[in-house]
């Protein structure tokens, strides 16, 4: 599963470069996510802008990724395409994840201001 991590303005951004998070890649998604965020601190933003489809196994994997970060380290989401947005809304999981329109909006609203410690 193709995923990519970078640090943007103090925020760890994990982008999924696959078009799907489904039952066939759910375990791979969790394992890759764990590797990418290990040794990093703070909020993680999961950029889903390439993901056209998420099934309930994929959603479960995203929830598992949230839990890998521990109780106090948020996992926020951005870039939800229509089918992904639909699954998040129908399962009400859109009410517990912070969801941003895109990466720029997430960074503007969550990254620490320059110069803060």
């Amino acid at each position, binding site marked *: 599963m193709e995923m990519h991590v970078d640090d943007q303005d103090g925020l760890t951004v994990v982008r999924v470069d696959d078009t*799907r998070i*489904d*039952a*066939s890649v759910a375990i791979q998604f969790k394992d890759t996510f764990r590797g990418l965020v290990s040794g990093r601190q703070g909020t993680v933003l999961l950029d889903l802008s390439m993901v056209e*489809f998420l*099934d*309930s*196994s994929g*959603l*479960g*994997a995203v*929830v*598992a990724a*949230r*839990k890998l970060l*521990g*109780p106090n380290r948020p996992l926020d989401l951005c870039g939800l395409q*229509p*089918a992904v947005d*639909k*699954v998040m809304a*129908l*399962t*009400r*999981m859109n*009410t*517990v994840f912070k969801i941003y329109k895109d990466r720029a909006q997430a960074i503007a609203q969550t990254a620490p201001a320059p110069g803060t410690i």
Partner: protein
Amino acid sequence: MRLGATDRSVRAALDRLCDRLDGAGVEPELIDLSRIVLAEVLNNIVEHAYGPDRDGAIDLSVQMIPKGVRCCVMDDGAPMPDGDVPHTERPVADAGAPMTWPEGGFGWHLVRDLTSQLCYRRGAGRNDLTFEITLP
């Protein structure tokens, strides 16, 4: 269409089906809904009706109806528990307790929320599930 009961085959079959629906001029929203529902139904057959130790096939047919599609899915796996599509509690996540958020149990709720005329029959060792997906 007939597909093997594996995660990979399900993904490939959904791609083929959605391409066909797109080619037939079906609205993107209806294609998305069909993919969401069929992914859950087909994954359930792979994971539960056949399970990890059993190979098998799934027969899927999709027919156009006014403002929607009518789907029929058949397999030779184990019957549904209690002879019907599972009725389970809807999983609920407590915003303040992320470590307790549900990682599963969403599938049949997605199916029920997005379909009508959902009907399960068991006969001659086969599961037969039919349903309709229509745009409002």
